[in-house]
């Protein structure tokens, strides 16, 4: 839908839907060869590129689509250092209207609970129909923030959401369960949803799109603004603490091929042949 068509459409039917999406900046690890720092407390982040967490990207897309159909407003919130402004701009370019950044200072070493506390403080003062988060983040992968938030906000929630339908007085969502089964749930609004990948195809964000939202003001808040003390947040306010990062050891059944591409291809073909994969 082009801008002017959209406008015309929205004038016809006003049934606004305000959505808040909580997003996170994560290192992009697709093809990168990760290394762990000497203390084993984290991966080495110097050479890595950063991007919006994949699940969150789907959540932003879904929120923007719901807004495009129903009208309303999409607000994105993140907790992170100044670089995480990039993911907010990314979401704005996708079609989000407002962005809030919670400054990272004091939040170092936070687990899901500690992050959820900060997000809760922001959300409780906003008016919304839906809160969305990704099911999990690709770096820590705990999958907790969405459910913690629902608990703190005292709202109904659904996890692993792969379809959202707007109804007169609520929504119907599909949850993705094991072995291709799906559960269909009817929910009242407001509600909290954690979004599963594959719910949509996130749109491409062009460089010009990013440039266009360069001047949109980002609302920055600190832990202090939110009334959080140092014992509430960071490692002190967390119930988990990370002990050690490590790489998996080479186990049985795994064989690393080395040498030139030709040599490796020959070896690989030989193994496949031996196991009966090729006649």
């Amino acid at each position, binding site marked *: 839908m082009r801008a002017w068509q959209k406008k015309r459409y929205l004038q016809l039917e006003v049934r606004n839907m305000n959505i808040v999406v909580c997003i996170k900046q994560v290192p992009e690890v697709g093809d990168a060869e990760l290394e762990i720092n000497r203390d084993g407390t984290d991966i080495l982040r110097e*050479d890595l590129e950063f991007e919006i967490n994949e699940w969150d990207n789907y959540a932003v897309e879904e929120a923007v689509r719901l807004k495009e159909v129903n009208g309303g407003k999409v607000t994105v919130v993140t907790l992170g250092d100044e670089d995480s402004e990039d993911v907010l701009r990314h979401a704005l370019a996708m079609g989000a209207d407002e962005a809030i950044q919670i400054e990272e200072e004091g939040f170092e070493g936070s687990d899901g609970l500690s992050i959820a506390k900060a997000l809760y403080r922001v959300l409780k003062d906003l008016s919304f129909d839906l809160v969305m988060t990704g099911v999990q983040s690709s770096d820590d992968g705990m999958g907790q923030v969405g459910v913690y938030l629902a608990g703190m906000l005292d709202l109904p929630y659904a996890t692993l959401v792969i379809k959202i339908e707007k109804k007169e007085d609520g929504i119907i969502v599909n949850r993705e369960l094991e072995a291709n089964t799906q559960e269909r749930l009817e929910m009242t609004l407001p509600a909290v949803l954690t979004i599963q990948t594959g719910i949509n195809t996130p749109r*491409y964000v*062009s460089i*010009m799109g990013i*440039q266009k939202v360069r001047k949109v003001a980002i609302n920055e808040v600190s832990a202090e603004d939110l009334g959080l003390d140092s014992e509430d947040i960071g490692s002190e306010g967390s119930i988990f603490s990370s002990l050690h990062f490590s790489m998996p050891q080479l186990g049985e059944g795994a064989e690393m091929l080395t040498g030139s591409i030709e040599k490796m291809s020959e070896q690989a073909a030989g193994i496949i042949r031996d196991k009966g994969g090729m006649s």
Partner: protein
Amino acid sequence: MPQRQLFLNIDSCGVSLFYFIAALAVALFLLGIVSRIYLWVKSAKGKKIIWNSEGFSNFLVNGLLGRRLFKGDFSAGIMHFLLLWGFAGLFAATTLVAIDDYLFSFLKGNVYIVFSAFADAAGLMLIAGVLMAVIRRYLQRVPRLERRTEDFLAVFWLLLVGISGFAVEGSRLAVQNASWEKWSFAGQFFSMFFTHSGNSAGLYQFLWWSHALLSLLFIAYIPYSKLFHILAAPASLYLEKQPGIISGAEDVSEERSPFSLREIIGFDSCTRCGRCVDVCPSAGAGERFAPRDFIAWARREFSLNMDMPSLLSKIHGNFINRDPGDSSLTEENIWNCTTCMACLEVCPVFLHTPDAVRDARKRVIEEGTKVPSFLSQALKNVFKYNNPWEATKKKRAKWCDDLDVPDLSAAEGPADLCYFVGCTTSMETRAQGLARSFVQILRNADISFGTLGKKEPCCGDIARRAGEAGLFEMKKEDCISLFSDLEIKDVVTSSPHCFHTFANEYFSCQMPGSAEDQFSFRVRHYTQVLHELLEKGFIKFPSKLPLKVTYHDPCYLGRYNRIFDAPREVIQAIPGVTLVEMFHNRENSLCCGGGGDRMWQEDMEGEVKMSEKRIREAADTGAEVVITTCPLCLIMLEDACKTAGFENELRVMDLNELLVRAMDIKAVSGDESMAEKEIFAAGG
């Protein structure tokens, strides 16, 4: 005295009626034109058209003389020539009659005799042209021509106008039968049918009115049909050489039409002659794309989005909807275009379809929701990792780990020449052979050169083809700032795509006074460097290499940059090598299917693969090796060679690889790629 009486046997009431209808027809004609010009002016977006003699000569040579129309289809050229000059001649004759009647009388005596002979000749030319058109379209059924209602109307209406014109003249002469009228030779012939008629005055009136109404309605019909090309095509030909207005909208999301004025006028000039369909590799492979269909689609899309006064919009809507088109081309098919430019090579109105495709893509990119997923990933990679292939910056210089090539970005220079390897040649295993061979040749010739190592950016070609204008600008700035920091003045590229982008797209649409204006560099494709080395005697062949080869022209080297001879001369300089040409060669070369970002998209639905078509053509020449000079062609053809089952009879080699073999340069180390090894073994 020889002269002609106007409105013979038509009473004053009839004359008034005639003028009334004439005024109506002209009003309709003008309204149609205004509705088109209105859109033209809007899409000019304030840019000025400047006087340009090249454009004018293009109009003369390719418009009035129709050189493009003769090329490749002589009979079409003759047909158009007859129609154009017959039509123009009759138009001139009518204008002269009007001048004679209203301003000053001069069509009398010998002048009238010459005039009537001239008018008759023009009329005959028109009828001959129309008959040729009828034969070509409906009897001979030339495959590229369609038989739609509009085509039928255009030719048969014009035929009726022509014949009724002569019938009127004939019946008039039958009545008047003056001796000078023998100069109206065609009319004289027609008058034979009327001499024995008892009621020729009544018949004359009937014929006169038929001809008048047919002609007037035809004039009114012009702007609402493909006949509008009579006005649009000259404009399109003139604009061919106007660099200022060739670029489309910069900010497509704000504009309702992403197309440039030149493209809009080009769309209006299209008569669906189908020459582009004949040469389009995508259409040829049975895919759902053809330039002609794209143009119809683009014109419709563009017009629907335009804001215009309701009357004009209605007229305009009719114009557009006259041709819903039988094609199933949709927005997703704009990604089929390989931007090979074969369509422009044959287009009689010089419509830059690939540019228009890019502008259409721009809109899809800015909207973001319908970008093909593989391409979207490739673009993201270009943004973050400076290459479309892999999400890593680390591997870019791996191809030359063992070659000890100076890294200019690490101050291992200074070097005279900067070898810009490019993304594909750096990252793709097969294409790396090109770079490795080129480095050996440069070394052998003692050329001082270096690369940009891991820091080498993407030139932005992929972004440019995808219509990702912001990303292209970003990559352009990356390259220019790196080149200027390192004071690089002389660049040679592996890929014709990088070459074209640097040479023709970096500085073409630049605002004067911008920062980039201060810096310029020379860029060459490696074929030009090889050719120069050969001429200077830096490339020597110790022994004969008995080999029959054929050469595949990459689109961006050949059609885009007219480099046809350099690679051929290099090939032919090798003693023992014979070069045979494929059916499609030089400017008619057939695209391998990898351009226009097709390399980074999923295979598209079609009957055959473009690359397999091309490799079959290469195999048909009986050559043992097909040589190319582009990493994309190399990959596409190499794959096709295997999938089409020519692996045992035909090899695909880059020109550098052939040279290294012919120059008998010792491989640097034992790890040359499998492809190279095979070729060495086979070539010996």
